[in-house]
């Protein structure tokens, strides 16, 4: 039984392990912690060419270039925030996976709450009507 859990857990960690060792080969001279940052950044930035994919999951020429830039900036000692700002200034908010709160994205941010409260309201009205009947 324990073995089964172990395999399950190992299964979850395996792909990430693989990605990290790959990153180390292609992008040398990074410390353990910097490799982690590289993997994290490339997973959480969007490839501007193939927009449903992250930089890490893409081999489009621009994704390769941007990964090199991220590598370079990490080696230069830039923080994650600085790197994200660097890319945002050139490629726009779109490259970050977290959409900003503005008039266009408000439906994404607040729509679910609105639907939740509307549903709650409908249920309450329904229950009240039923109990008065």
């Amino acid at each position, binding site marked *: 039984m324990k073995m089964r859990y172990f395999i399950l857990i190992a299964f979850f960690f395996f792909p990430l392990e693989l990605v990290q060792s790959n990153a180390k080969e292609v992008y040398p001279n990074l410390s353990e912690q910097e490799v982690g940052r590289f993997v994290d950044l490339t997973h959480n930035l969007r490839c*501007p060419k193939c927009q449903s994919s992250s930089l890490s999951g893409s081999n489009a020429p621009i994704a390769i270039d*941007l990964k090199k830039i991220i590598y370079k900036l990490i080696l230069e000692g830039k923080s994650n925030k600085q790197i994200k700002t660097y890319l945002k200034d050139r490629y*726009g908010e779109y490259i970050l996976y977290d959409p900003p709160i503005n008039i266009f994205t408000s439906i994404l941010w607040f729509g679910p709450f609105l639907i939740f409260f509307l549903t709650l309201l409908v249920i309450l009205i329904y229950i009240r009507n039923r109990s008065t009947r």
Partner: protein
Amino acid sequence: MRKILNVVPLLIFCILLAYLFVLLNEDKNDLTSALIGKEIPVFELPSLKDPELVFENKDLKDLPALINVWATWCAACAVEHPFLLELSNNKGVPIYGINYKDSRKKAIDYLKRKKDPFKFNIFDSSGDLGIDLGVYGAPETFLISKKGTIIDRHAGALNSDIWDQKFRIYFHQD
């Protein structure tokens, strides 16, 4: 009152459907540039035709103008090439080229073979200026104002429809 309430979900559904339908038709390949309203990034790069010659921002003199990012490996660039020639030859639109991640020899041959619509070409072999401009593929065309700021960007091949829609009003030659 009850009857009206019954229609509400259907109404919401229809609005949502219409909204999503509009989004579906939106061209997601042409992203809005993050550089709109900003100056052209600072560059200092060699000329395509003469490796000794270095171009800087101040060499972009004839404004308003287009900056076209192109390469010989890019199929859509060949598609828009005749239109660029027409703009430059017949409509007097100044076009500056950025030869993007290309081989110098191939690019020079290409311009000899197909004619050269550019005032001059910046040779960006590493693609660094491309990244500063937020280029994510070739071809891309930037519209530069009289003051040297970026007004608009079109990603993908330029044609007369897009020219009329986005760029034409900034040039009073035609």
